C-alpha cells in the first residue's frame, strides 16, 4: 500500500479516493470460493478440536427488549459452565448485553475470565446524535464493559459521508479509553453488512472501520437479514489480512447473526484457516456472535464423546 494512510481521512473525497481504489470484489467468485470452502469435511479429531475452539470463541448474546436481570444472570452462569454435566467444556469468550445490564453481567462474571461486551451507539439502527452515542458508550465503559460493539451509521456510509462514519468510530474509540491505567475497552465495529448490500461496500466499510481504529470488525447486529454469511465473512477476513500487511496492525473479525449449528461454526473456522491462517484461530482475534449456537456445539461435543445424541432437554436453556 503506497498511500500514506494518515492523510486518507482528511475529507470525504480523500476517503472516497482511497476506499474506491481498493481492489473490487467479484460477487460470483467470492460466493464460489466461500461455497467451495463450505464443502470441507471436518471429521473425528479435527471436529472435536474445532468444537472446543468454537465454544471458546462464542460471544453469548442476548439483545432483546425483554432482557431482565434474571435472564442475564442465567446467561452468565451458562457462559462460565456451558455444560453442567461436563467440566471439561471450556468457557465461552464473552457475553454480550445492552449497556444498562453491563454492571450486572460484570458482577456475575467477576473472576471467571469471561469478558463482558456491550452493544452501544443507539444499537441496532445507530440513528441518533454523536453525543448520545458517546454517552451510551461511556455508560457501558463506566459500568465495566471489556468490549464495546458499536454500529456504524449505514445511512452516512451509503450516501458517501465516509468522514462522518470515520469520525464517529474515532469518537467512540476515544470513549472506550479508561484513563486511570485500566484496560481500555476493545472496540468492535458492526458494519451491518446486510444493509451495505454489495461486497464492494463490505470491503470499503471494513477498511474504513480499521482506519478509524476498530479492534474488531463485526458483520451484523443480528437484527437484519442476511447477517453473517460465509462470503461476507470471507471478504472481511481478506480485509484484515491486507490491513495487517499494509499497516502492521492486526484486527479481529466477528461474524454474528444466523450462525446456529456446529456445521455453520466449523465452516467459519475453515474459512479463517484457509484465508488468514492460524494467527486468527484464537478468541482474541475471531469471535462468533450467537445465542442458540452454543447448545448445538454442546450436543455435538457430547455426541463425539459418547457416540450418542442426547435429547435437547439434556442441555440447559437460559
Amino acid at each position, binding site marked *: 500500500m503506497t498511500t500514506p494512510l494518515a492523510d486518507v481521512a482528511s475529507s470525504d473525497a480523500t476517503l472516497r479516493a482511497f476506499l474506491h481504489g481498493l481492489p473490487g470484489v467479484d460477487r460470483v467468485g467470492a460466493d464460489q470460493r466461500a461455497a467451495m470452502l463450505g464443502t470441507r469435511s471436518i471429521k473425528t479429531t479435527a471436529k472435536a478440536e474445532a468444537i472446543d475452539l468454537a465454544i471458546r470463541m462464542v460471544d453469548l448474546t442476548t439483545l432483546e427488549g425483554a432482557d431482565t436481570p434474571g435472564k442475564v444472570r442465567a446467561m452468565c452462569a451458562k457462559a462460565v459452565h456451558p455444560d453442567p454435566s461436563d467440566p471439561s467444556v471450556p468457557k465461552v469468550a464473552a457475553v454480550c448485553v445492552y449497556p444498562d445490564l453491563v454492571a450486572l453481567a460484570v458482577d456475575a462474571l467477576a473472576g471467571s475470565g469471561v469478558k463482558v461486551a456491550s452493544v452501544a451507539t443507539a444499537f441496532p439502527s445507530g440513528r441518533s446524535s454523536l453525543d448520545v452515542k458517546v454517552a451510551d458508550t461511556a455508560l457501558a465503559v463506566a459500568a465495566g464493559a471489556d468490549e464495546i460493539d458499536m454500529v456504524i451509521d449505514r445511512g452516512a456510509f451509503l450516501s458517501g459521508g465516509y468522514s462522518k462514519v470515520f469520525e464517529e468510530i474515532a469518537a467512540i474509540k476515544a470513549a472506550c479509553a479508561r484513563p486511570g491505567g485500566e484496560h481500555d475497552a476493545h472496540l468492535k465495529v458492526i458494519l451491518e453488512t446486510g444493509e451495505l448490500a454489495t461486497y464492494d461496500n463490505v470491503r470499503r466499510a471494513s477498511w474504513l472501520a480499521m482506519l478509524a481504529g476498530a479492534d474488531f470488525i463485526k458483520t451484523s447486529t443480528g437484527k437484519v437479514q442476511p447477517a453473517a454469511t460465509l462470503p461476507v465473512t470471507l471478504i472481511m477476513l481478506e480485509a484484515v489480512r491486507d490491513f495487517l500487511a499494509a499497516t502492521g496492525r492486526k484486527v479481529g473479525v466477528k461474524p454474528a447473526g444466523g450462525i446456529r449449528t456446529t456445521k455453520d461454526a466449523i465452516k467459519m473456522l475453515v474459512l479463517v*484457516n484457509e484465508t488468514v491462517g*492460524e494467527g486468527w*484461530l484464537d478468541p482474541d482475534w475471531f469471535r462468533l456472535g450467537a445465542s442458540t449456537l452454543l447448545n448445538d456445539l454442546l450436543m455435538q461435543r457430547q455426541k463425539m464423546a459418547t457416540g450418542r445424541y442426547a435429547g435437547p432437554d439434556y442441555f440447559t436453556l437460559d
Partner: protein
Amino acid sequence: MFEYAPAPESRDVVDVKSSYGLFIDGEFTDGAGAAFKTINPATEETLAEVAAASEADVDRAVRAARRAFGTWSAMPGSERAKYLFRIARIIQERSRELAVLETLDNGKPIREARDVDLPLVAAHFFYYAGWADKLGHAGYGPDPKPLGVAGQVIPWNFPLLMLAWKVAPALACGNTVVLKPAETTPLTALLFAEICRQADLPPGVVNIVTGAGETGAAVVNHPDVNKVAFTGSTEVGRLIARSVAGSGKKVTLELGGKAANIVFDDAAIDQAVEGIVDGIFFNQGHVCCAGSRLLVQESVADELLEALKRRLSRLRLGDPLDKNTDIGAINSAEQLARVRELSDIGEAEGAERWSPACELPGRGFWFPPTIFTGVAQSHRIARDEVFGPVLAMLTFRTPAEAVEKANNTPYGLSAGVWTEKGSRILWMADRLRAGVVWANTFNKFDPTSPFGGYKESGYGREGGRHGLEAYLDV
C-alpha cells in the same frame, strides 16, 4: 494449526471387477488383443485387467453399430429422448459410485469428480435428451438426418465427461457409436456400458472398445465409420486428420491449448487469484483449456504473485479419495515424465521456478503445484502444452500487448480476462482468437455452451446447439 483429519470417501461404494471385457452389441465379450492393466495413479496399485480390442474386434463393434443404426435412427426423437433421460437419471443415481471409480482410475480429487465431473455428465445427457425430438428446430433444416456410425476416441483427463460430450449428442441425433476410452482410464466407460444395459438401450447403439493407440486407429480408419470425433493431443489429431482425409468421414477434433489468463490492474484481485488457481491447478492441470499462461499487467505483478504464492501454500495435495484434497495424482508415469521434462527445460531456459513446501506421497505419480516467473514468450514453457500443474507467468503493459501475447500461440482453445471494466472485457473478447473467452471466471462449463478451438486447438464445436451439427448430415 487447524489440521484436518483424514476424511476419505469410501471405496466400497463401487465394485471394481478384477477383469473387464469389451462392450459390443450389448454384451461384454473378450478381446483378441493382449489384455492390459489399469492402475490407480495415486498408489500404482493395479485396479483391473482390461481386454484390448483388435482390428477384428473393432470391426465387430462397427458392424453391430451399423445394424443398430437402422432401428435407432428410425425411432422417433421423442423415443430416443426417453432412453437418454433414463441414462441421465441413472447417472445421477449412481453418481457417487461413478465419482469414486473416476477418482481411483484417474487420480483426480474426489471433490472435483463429485462436484464437477459427475454433475456435468448428467447435465449433458439431460440437455441432449431434450434436443432429440426438436432437431427440426435446431437451424439445420426441417428434418436433419444422422450420419451413421460415429467412431469416437477420448482422452484420460475427464474420462466420463468426455464420453458424455461425445455420446449424448451422437445418440440424440440418431447415430450409433463405437467409443474408445483412453488406455489409462477405461473403467468409468465400462461402468457406463453397464448403465446402458440398465437403461435397456438397444444392443449395438453404444459399443465400447478398450485398448491403446492401435485400437483407436482401427476405430478411426474403419471404412464403415461415417464420423470421427477425437479429443486429445494435437499430435494424434494431425495423424487422424491425415488418415481420414478424402474418406468422406465427417471429423471434429478437440486438441491442445495454451490458454492465456489475462489479469488487468483493476481486477478483483482475490477472485482473480482463485480463478488463476482454478485455471491451472484444477484436475492437476490436465485440462486442454487450462489457463497455463498467466499474463499480468506489470503494475500489479508483484502484488499478484505474492497473493498467488500465499494461496498455493494452502492447496492440499494428497490422497485423491480424501474429500479435502485439492490436488490429486498425475495420471500416468508417462505424463509425469513429460511434466518433469518441460519443467526442467523451463529452468534451463532461465525462468525461475517456485513451488510451495509440499510433501509428495512416496508411491504414485505426483507433481507439486508450480509457478514459473521471469518467463519470456520464447521459452518452451510459454509455448508447449505441459498438461500438468505448471503455470508460466508473463507480464504486459497495455491491453494491445496483452492481446498480442495471448494470440501469439499456435493454439486457440480458451482465454480468460480479469478486469472490473465491462467495456474492456468486450474489447478483449473481440480480439482474442480463442474458442472460449471467460470473463472474471475460468474453467466454467455448461452443456448449453459450445466448446472448441481455433488453429491447432482443433475444429468443430461440442456442446450447445452447435454441437448437434457434428452429428447431423448438414
